[in-house]
């Protein structure tokens, strides 16, 4: 169950730490760095040709003591379409900061300069109670291919609190050279400043300078390129973030020391909530039987926890509704049982308590959900661990459960909580722990069509679809706020997207309320013109269901790793019957591909009386693949598409031919 970071004991202070000292202020400077003739003459980026523009240089300097930042950016425009880079928008929270000293200019290709003297607008981004985010917007003059634009400004923050500081090192444009610097607040009483870097090349890191600033220089950093099936941006974007540590906490800890201390804190907090043996024992004795096997006991306790209404699955309320319906606070698992209502985290805590009361070794564990980020042990930031699970030792194996995920039965986890790393807090500290990745057989979609072809080429019959395991859970969770009408409509559209036109009408739908059963839909299909004509022959696609793989493998080149959310299996089958007057001339040969890494495709068709039966399996065996495996993956999916594209050839029987 994912949750807000505030549930983890917070060890960093990024906001609302009072600063006692008044700020100084750097005067605005209107000096620009010299422009080299080579940069003026540049017509493309030699390091990464073919972009609309590139960042020649940028500099970001932060003065933490005086709460201001200065930003400077010099951009080369290469194409007509790159001219839009001359439209600048700087967002800021007007209640906490202001933008000052904006200067900008355009350097024409002949080296002459046009200073920006136009209007700067304050565009409202969002305004609500206690919040007003504005954007300074302006447009540089005479921007054309070959020119250089540059602008700088200063962000002055209010001095009565610290603000989140991050060097957003990587942008969507190639950066030739960049310098980042921060001058920490070193006045007495100021908290210590720490940093962590993400995806920064190993050759670069913030280094303390003689003048007390931390600075980092970086060169030739490619821009982020968006592609299908790429990992989440947080996993690939280079950045450095800074944080303050509470003055009461030890300074300069090693990662081991840090996580040990955090683990203890987390463990204490959990134990305080869970440790209500009396109340738990009563539930356990009502829920499980003495003769139940250990696994059955766990299953029953899991089901019991999921009976408690989960506030995370209530329709989101407005502030006014929440105020009026103020929920009773749960301070421990006894309260959860008494109030018969809890958030996801509390439900998982209850599961740990019940498991322990039933004699299991069990604990809360905290992981970094793959939907957001990965867990970096060396980064001393507990906010990474924003999802929690229940760990239980069962028959000498580790079992991971998440009863807080309402639509996931015992044994199933949401994909973003599988294949992840995290921590198991203990009284002594914290153990690192890995939650295994699910298997392809844990998420299955079965599709079956039983259809007949009419003499006019129209196909009619029935289609059924079963979503099993994790796939069924995902569908249930996706539709949890919808009624049957909406579910039916969207699933009808899904099925129609697999068909080459025609109509589909759902006649059966079941399994929404029982997660242990397949989610099942079935309906009738009618597709005019399904068979295509080829002189006196007719052709019919063998796979019936169109390939649903995204067109992610169309391009020959790839920049980012390939990322599937979870392993899965597709099982398709078709029984097709042909009318009198047509007989099967050929069926496609069986096709198979098993390139390793758990990937598998096989399709086979056999003649069966006057019809054909087809079976198709597709197994996606893993989730993360480096760029160098892209050609092999592309070949695999090309094989899938080719196999799916095969045709059954029909020809008239002799009688009908003579007719």
């Amino acid at each position, binding site marked *: 169950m994912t949750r807000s970071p505030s549930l983890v004991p917070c060890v960093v202070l990024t906001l609302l730490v009072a600063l006692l000292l008044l700020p100084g202020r750097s005067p605005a400077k209107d000096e620009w760095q010299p422009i080299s003739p080579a940069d003026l003459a540049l017509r493309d980026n030699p390091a*990464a040709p*073919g*972009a609309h523009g590139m960042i020649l240089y940028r500099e970001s300097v932060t003065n933490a003591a005086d709460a201001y930042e200065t930003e400077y950016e010099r951009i080369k425009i290469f*194409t*007509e*379409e790159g*001219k*839009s880079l*001359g*439209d600048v928008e700087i967002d800021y929270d007007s209640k906490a900061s202001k933008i000052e000293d904006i200067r900008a200019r355009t350097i024409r290709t002949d080296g002459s300069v046009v200073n920006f003297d*136009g*209007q700067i*607008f304050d565009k*409202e981004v*969002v*305004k*609500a*109670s206690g919040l007003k985010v504005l954007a300074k*917007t302006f*447009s540089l*003059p*005479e*921007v*054309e291919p070959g020119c250089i634009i540059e602008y700088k400004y200063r962000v002055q923050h209010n001095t009565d609190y610290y603000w989140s500081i991050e060097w957003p090192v990587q942008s969507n444009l190639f950066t030739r050279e960049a310098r980042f610097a921060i001058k920490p607040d070193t006045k007495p009483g100021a908290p210590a400043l720490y940093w962590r870097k993400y995806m920064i090349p190993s050759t670069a890191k913030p280094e303390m300078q003689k003048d007390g600033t931390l600075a980092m220089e970086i060169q030739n950093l490619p821009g982020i390129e968006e592609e299908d099936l790429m990992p989440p941006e947080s996993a690939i974007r280079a950045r450095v973030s800074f944080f303050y540590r509470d003055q009461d906490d030890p300074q300069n800890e090693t990662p081991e020391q840090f996580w040990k201390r955090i683990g203890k804190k987390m463990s204490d907090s959990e134990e305080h909530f869970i440790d209500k043996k009396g109340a738990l024992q009563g539930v356990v004795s009502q829920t499980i039987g003495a003769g139940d096997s250990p696994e059955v006991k766990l299953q029953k306790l899991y089901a019991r926890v999921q009976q408690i209404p989960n506030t995370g699955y209530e*329709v989101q*309320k*407005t*502030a006014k*509704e929440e105020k*009026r319906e103020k929920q009773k606070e749960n301070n421990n698992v006894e309260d959860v049982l008494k109030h018969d209502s809890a958030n996801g985290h509390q439900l998982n805590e209850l599961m740990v308590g019940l498991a322990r009361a039933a004699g299991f070794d069990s604990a809360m564990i905290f992981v970094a959900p793959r939907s957001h980020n990965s867990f970096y042990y060396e980064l001393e930031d507990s906010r990474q661990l924003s999802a929690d699970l229940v760990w239980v030792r069962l028959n000498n194996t580790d079992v991971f459960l998440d009863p807080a995920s309402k639509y996931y039965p015992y044994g199933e986890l949401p994909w973003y909580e599988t294949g992840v790393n995290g921590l198991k807090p203990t009284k002594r500290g914290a153990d690192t722990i890995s939650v295994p990745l699910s298997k392809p057989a844990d998420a299955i979609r079965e599709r079956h069509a039983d259809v007949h072809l009419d003499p006019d080429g129209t196909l009619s019959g029935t289609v059924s679809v079963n979503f099993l395991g994790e796939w069924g859970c995902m569908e249930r969770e996706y539709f949890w706020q*919808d*009624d049957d*009408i*909406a579910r039916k409509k969207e699933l009808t559209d899904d099925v129609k997207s697999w068909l080459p*036109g*025609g*109509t589909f009408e759902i006649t059966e739908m079941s399994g929404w309320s029982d997660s242990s059963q397949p989610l099942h839909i079935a309906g009738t299909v009618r597709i*005019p*013109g399904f068979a*295509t*004509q*080829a*002189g*006196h*022959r007719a*052709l019919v696609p063998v796979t019936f269901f169109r390939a649903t793989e995204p*067109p992610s493998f*169309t*391009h*020959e080149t790839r920049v980012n790793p390939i990322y599937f959310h979870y392993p899965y299996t597709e099982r398709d089958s078709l029984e097709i019957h042909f009318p009198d007057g047509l007989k099967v*001339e*050929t*069926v*496609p040969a069986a096709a198979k591909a098993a390139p390793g890494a758990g990937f598998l495709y096989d399709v086979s068709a056999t003649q069966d009386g006057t019809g054909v039966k087809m079976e198709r399996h597709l197994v996606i065996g893993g989730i993360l693949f480096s760029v160098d495996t892209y050609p092999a993956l592309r070949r695999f999916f*090309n*094989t899938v598409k*080719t196999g799916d*594209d095969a*045709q059954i*050839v029909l020809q008239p029987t002799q009688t009908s031919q003579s007719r």
Partner: protein
Amino acid sequence: MAVALCFVGFARPGKAGDTAPDWLRAAARETVPVFPNNPVAVILLDECSTTVRDNGEIETVYRRAYKILRPEGRERYGHLEVHFDSDTRLLELKAWALPADGKEYEVKEKDSVEHGLVGEDLYNDEQVKVLDIPAATPGNVIGYEYSKRHRPYLLEDDWYFQDLIPILRARFTLQLPPGWEITTRWANYVESKEQPVGSNSFLWEVENIPAVEVEPEMPPWPAVAGHMDVKYSPRDPALRSKTSGSWNDIALWYAGLTVSSREASPEIKQKVAELTAGEPTTLDKIKALTSFMQRQIRYVAIEIGIGGYQPHPASEVFRYRYGDCKDKATLLGSMLHEIGVESYYVVAQTDRGILRPDFPSLRGFNHMILAIRLPDDVPSAGLYAILKHPQYGRLLIFDPTDPYTPLGYIPPYEQDNYGLLVTPTGGELLALPLLPASTNRLLRTGELTLNSDGDLTGDVVEIRWGAPAVIRRAQILETPPADRAKIFEDFLGYHLNNFRLTSASIGNLELYDQTLELHYKFVVQNYAKVAGNLLLVRPRVLGSEGGMVDADKPRKYPIQFLDATVQSDDYKIALPAGFVADDLPDPVDVKTDYGSYKSKIDVADGSLHYRRTFEIKQVYIATPEVPDLRKFYSQISSDERANAVLRKSAP
């Protein structure tokens, strides 16, 4: 009785307590019938009350009551969005919920979130307040009320009374000052006559209004949703200039607004001289200026107050080298004047079906283009967007905002549409031409070779004219050069599996007035499917025209196409040695009033030769013609999927 009650009850919203107003409670008591298509909610009452003051100020109170019928209703109607700008003051904003089994809720403006309008503009002053309404769950009734005051530039208004969900009752009341008059026009709905409810006060009421159903390729909302347009004629002659009595009135108003905008600065004059210095003819000079406008003046919109209508001065646009549509039209007009060519603003609309010639109004416009008055020495050849005007002669319509549509053409969405010609002495509504299909062409020619394993090598040349050239040119130019091969791969990937692009080149990419020429080569593994001793080959290797065949339910609204076009494919596929054609798809030849499709395949000299031509001549297909259109597309789709069967000849 209901009328009188409604009008009396529609005073300015008073300072109510934390309970729902009576009008909402009354609406909640309405009996809700069973509707077709399972709407997510029903509007019990839609009420709009406008008070016009003698000084031209207009204040309107809006009320709505919904009953939420399904969970999706909360997402779609559980919040209120109110737009306003620097000319419009939001006076009051409140919403309520009447839960079926609980205490009423009230939320106010202080509970709302305000944000700027997200769009392409660098800056505009339009703001949106969003107010979440509590308890918007099935079975509950919710409602809101807000009021706005503004003083419009022209005394016009509209009342939209149809929505995506059914409406039980919609009312519009209007209070005019003594001596004022109105003109109304009903659109897309049977007119309901006004009922006098007091001194120069009127009420219109409509009941049981069905939902507008969203259909693909349907006309824009104002062309399908029931509404009433209103124009106010003031008593004070000084205000009469703000009344859009005729198209000429509106043109005069706009001419007055832009009277000094086009004055050329010395810098503009110098630039014009520089750009046209080497150009031998007037047409070449015009092209030099229009090209400068398209490429050198980038689109940046800054709209504040009257700036939504009034362009920036030409000198300012030239100085900064950016502006919005009216700014670009202004500067181009100024530059053309310097070479002795006159031009006029044409206020336009980028969607068809919104402007109605019979009801002059400024509200239907959203764009600005230019009518260039062609001097006699400019030949008409190649300039397709010419209108012959009795007073001004040949007017060449040109859109300086569209960066890729060259002089002589206009973008498809402006064709078969209307534009208001604005001249210093008045103006008129022009019917903008639909360019003939022959001006928007695509010819794809392929030389391909098949081997006995079914692998195909292809060498294809595409030549594009008009809109097909503009669309692809825009896509290519807006893609960084390093990624342009992906455009070819995406296109091939739509039609082929298991292919590899081996080369691609683009001809005339930056010569906008020339055809766009694409040349690409590729190889496809297993293109032809092996079936025993047969090879199955789809002769239509690339290109797709067979959409629009969804036959799920009867169509309610007409279909709009982008443009008239002719698109052809011509593929020669050399067959592998030892294979002969055993079965070929039949030719197709379909002709309709709106288009035609013809395909043919034959075998000669060891090659399959597939040719087809698809033509659309009209952009508007009336609803009764839609079933026939579906059949038309179904035949195209079948032809596109058809295969030739090759058989291995005896050794």
